[in-house]
């Protein structure tokens, strides 16, 4: 009884939604055909025709070969750590572990010890991360030229994210400042960095900057790139945040001033909490852009995840027709997972802040 009913319901639903007119029916059939083509293609390439076990290229040479997964398996260490010495890779693992358990509770509104957590992440974590990554205090020194893979992607992305937000806030406030010198400097900074491609910024940072620095004063290429990426992202961030600042009614500023709050108090307590909430989607959008832009550090000879994957295409023991595409699919998936996670988190925060405050 129940089954016939739901079967009838399904027929009814399909007639209503999928086949309500001739055009609609044609579109439905077309879409189904498209889905089938893409889906079956993906299925056979990813799984059905793919190779899962093997030790070199010979495993991936059958006719109608799909993905060559053993390539990823064999190279996964490089993809994650770059050319970081095998014996020291535990340091990266430890850092991944600390980062995960440092950032996660910070991102979860209900997690306890926020203040301690924040203090740890601001004051202790950067030092720990620096020591673990580059060495010192008894740990063997590892040059940044050996760093690579996902680890570099994350180092660049996280530094960029962490520095671009506060810097962007300051630039946005500066752009709306009443003090002409501050306003002009901020406008110039923003417009210059927004007006040039990131590749140019990275080139400037890695090739041009040392020319301007005094003899003997030279800091690491990766550090220079980090600064370049952070400044570049900050310029975009500033414009996103400015949008939020402008969306707030003037009355909020006036009420704060009428209560005797000073400029910084007004910004910190009244304006920024509201402005940042409004522009969460824009901020996350910038973060996602930044995360993907990290691949451009390849241009100055730093091998991020994508760079190191590409580098491995030249390995003759894994040279097959499917190696490159397998590598790209792998790298793409990793990037997608991180970006999608950021996107979901932003939606979660928006909803939470909306229910928290119930503005109108």
């Amino acid at each position, binding site marked *: 009884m129940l089954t016939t009913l739901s079967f009838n319901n399904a027929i009814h639903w399909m007639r209503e939604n999928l086949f309500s007119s001739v055009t609609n029916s044609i579109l439905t059939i077309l879409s189904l055909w498209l889905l089938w083509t893409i889906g079956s293609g993906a299925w056979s390439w990813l799984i059905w025709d793919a190779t899962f076990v093997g030790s070199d290229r010979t495993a991936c040479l059958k006719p109608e070969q799909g993905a060559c997964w053993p390539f990823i398996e064999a190279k996964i260490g490089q993809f994650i750590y770059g050319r970081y010495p095998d014996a020291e890779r535990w340091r990266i693992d430890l850092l991944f572990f600390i980062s995960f358990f440092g950032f996660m509770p910070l991102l979860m509104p209900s997690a306890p010890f926020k203040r301690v957590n924040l203090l740890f992440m601001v004051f202790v974590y950067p030092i720990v991360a620096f020591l673990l990554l580059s060495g010192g205090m008894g740990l063997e020194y590892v040059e940044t030229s050996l760093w690579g893979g996902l680890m570099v992607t994350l180092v660049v992305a996280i530094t960029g994210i962490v520095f671009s937000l506060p810097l962007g806030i300051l630039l946005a406030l500066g752009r709306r400042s009443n003090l002409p010198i501050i306003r002009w400097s901020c406008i110039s900074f923003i417009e210059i960095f927004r007006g040039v491609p990131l590749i140019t910024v990275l080139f400037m940072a890695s090739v041009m900057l040392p020319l301007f620095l005094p003899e003997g004063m030279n800091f690491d290429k990766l550090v220079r790139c980090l600064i370049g990426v952070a400044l570049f992202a900050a310029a975009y961030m500033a414009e996103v945040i400015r949008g939020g600042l402008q969306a707030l009614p003037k009355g909020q500023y*006036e*009420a704060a001033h*009428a*209560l*005797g709050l000073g400029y910084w108090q007004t910004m910190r307590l*009244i304006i920024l909490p509201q402005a940042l909430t409004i522009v969460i989607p824009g901020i996350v959008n910038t973060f996602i852009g930044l995360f993907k832009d990290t691949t451009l550090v390849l241009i100055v000879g730093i091998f991020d995840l994508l760079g190191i994957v590409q580098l491995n295409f030249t390995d003759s023991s894994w040279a097959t027709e499917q190696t490159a595409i397998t590598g790209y699919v792998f790298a793409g998936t990793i990037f997608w997972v991180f970006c999608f996670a950021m996107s979901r988190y932003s939606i979660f925060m928006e909803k939470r802040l909306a229910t928290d*405050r119930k*503005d109108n």
Partner: protein
Amino acid sequence: MTKSAILVENVDKWYGDFHVLKNISLNVNQGEKIVICGPSGSGKSTLIRCINQLEEHNAGRISIEGHEVIPGQRHKALARGHIGMVFQQFNLFPHMTVLENCTLAPIWVQKMSRKEAENIAHRYLERVRIPDQADKYPGQLSGGQQQRVAIARALCMTPRIMLFDEPTSALDPEMIKEVLDVMIELANEGMTMICVTHEMGFARQVADRIIFMDEGEIVEENDPESFFANPTNDRTKLFLSQVL
């Protein structure tokens, strides 16, 4: 005997080429209640916004309790002069609860302890008759309740002067009375008040003086009885015939 709370002397204010306030002079004694009315665009809001320096006047002098307010030093003058202000659009902080709205300035400006500030906030919320809404957000309250919170928020700074900028103009008619009642109570307690309002009933009941402004000038200034009974200026007569 009575001391001057607010002294405005020959104040001029321009917005670009537009002359908003023309040579305004006004003395408000301590404990006095002044109602300012007039058609829109007459400069009445600008005048009280100049008094607490939300706008800077271009010429003349404004003194609060004997201290001159100098354009550009708004913050200092406000913290010293204890002027509270209530806006037409309430301007509550939507991301904070009612209680947080009220304790914010006492904690951050007057450096009061949180507990002390909360005690004071609860006391004033009780006085504006919404003690049970302390933990709600402004968006969950009606317009009348929001405006009463705004009054309580201003009172938490224990001001000696209260400025009201059309406090009932954005309210639905049935909520106007609850806000006016609070304001009348405040007036009866001896607060120095300047209200920009079109509520003529309120003006008649509490005002010591009514000031009529038009085109940036004080056109007429009188006690309520004479103001309503024998307006001398034609523009006042026209205005009164429209609002009464």
